[in-house]
């Protein structure tokens, strides 16, 4: 078993052996359901999960940093990073192991929303492709937010600071693409810049995937985002080891 799996296994297990997983799952599942019905699921009179997925960006922007904040802040605060980094594990393996463990945890959280899917199937005849792409977009977006959270977690020993900074960064990335923001920005920015800002927003790409269209640029957006922020996280950690 190589070191990546050792870190991955340990991290995933630790979510479930502490109250973290249970509190997070209950809150996430409650709000994802509540917001869906508040959005007007019944009023729309359509058996699809649009009302469910439309709230994902904002919900994730708050909850994913909560899952990510402990990844590195806690290690540095408790000193266990000194154990981790003196085992024969590279920084890359450790960062990837923790990131993927958290991502799998979020995937489990999403999987536990299956009652919504059952509800929609019971009530009508939904388009399975749309539901599948909705979940795919959600998982990718969760990964993106997680990567941002990972970075801020490595930046600070204090979990509150990591959380707040991650939420702000994620919120900026979500809000950048919202129509109201776009309208406001276009009043004083050139059109080219506005559309550039639109392309770096989560919302735009998530909407696109959710609509059932799997375009390379949307998938690659998330992949690049994840790779970029996770690499930045690894660089920060290496830097701390080199210069305290």
């Amino acid at each position, binding site marked *: 078993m190589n070191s990546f799996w*050792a870190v991955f296994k340990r991290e995933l297990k630790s979510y479930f052996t502490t109250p973290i997983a249970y509190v997070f799952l209950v809150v996430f599942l409650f709000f994802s359901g509540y917001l869906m019905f508040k959005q007007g699921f019944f009023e729309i009179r359509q058996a699809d999960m649009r009302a469910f997925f439309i709230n994902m960006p904002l919900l994730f922007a708050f909850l994913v940093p909560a899952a990510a904040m402990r990844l590195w802040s806690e290690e540095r605060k408790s000193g*266990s990073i*000194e*154990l981790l980094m003196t*085992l*024969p594990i590279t920084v890359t393996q450790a960062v990837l192991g923790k990131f993927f463990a958290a991502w799998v945890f979020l995937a489990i959280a999403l999987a536990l929303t299956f009652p919504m899917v059952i509800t929609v199937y019971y009530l009508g005849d939904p388009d399975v492709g749309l539901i599948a792409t909705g979940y795919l977009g959600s998982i990718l977006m969760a990964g993106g937010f997680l990567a941002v959270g990972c970075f801020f977690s490595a930046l600070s020993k204090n979990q509150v600071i990591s959380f707040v900074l991650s939420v702000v960064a994620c919120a900026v990335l979500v809000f950048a693409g919202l129509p109201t923001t776009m309208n406001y920005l276009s009043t004083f920015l050139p059109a080219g810049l506005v559309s550039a800002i639109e392309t770096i927003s989560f919302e735009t790409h998530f909407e696109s995937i959710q609509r059932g269209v799997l375009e390379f640029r949307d998938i690659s957006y998330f992949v690049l985002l994840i790779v970029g922020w996770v690499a930045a996280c690894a660089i920060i950690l290496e830097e701390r080891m*080199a210069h305290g």
Partner: protein
Amino acid sequence: MISIKELRRSFGPVVAVDGVSFDAKKGDVLGFLGPNGAGKSTVMRMLACFLKPDSGTATVCGCDILKNPLEVRKSIGYLAENVPAYDEMTVGGFLNFVCDARRISGKARKRALDRLVPMCAIESVYHQAIDTLSKGYRRRVGLAQALIHDPQVLILDEPTDGLDPNQKHEVRQLISKMAKDKCIIVSTHILEEVEAVCSRTIIIAKGIIIVDSTPDKLRQQYNCSLDEVFRKITRTKVA
């Protein structure tokens, strides 16, 4: 086995280690002594490849700490002063994680655990969460983690800190028993420990090695107990 040349490390404006050099071979039990803030832990962290030196180099079992940190970590068992561990894990879960990370699996893992758990006397707490353990038991778990892969080099930062007199004696016995086949560096404030266990003594203060000798030679040279030798050296030479 260990060769250190002119290691230097600063933390901002504070120079923690200022040109430390020494060698250690198999069979040595090196007692690393010094006042608080002398740089002992920093040197150990650099050897364990947790910190990178600003300049200088070191090799452990032929591997360079800058070029081959992974290989170095494979041959070292390191116990840090604050005994870092994952508090929410059980002792057994934690040791299994360390075996995963060190790629000890199957029969080899079973053998390692069967050997180590009685050696460090942690059978009674094997299924307990680490954050519920007393200081002494936690340190023993840390020691088990450092020994589990039977490393050639041991770097122990205050291994008997917080242990009761019986446990202190047991750990010292353990170190003496392992000394023949390993190279062990022990940092400590307990001078009787140096006399009991160490074959060599290095006294470091303000990041510089002041003395590199053996406990017997030091006692003869200064004609007093090791306690007074320590006081004399660290008070006068560094004033």
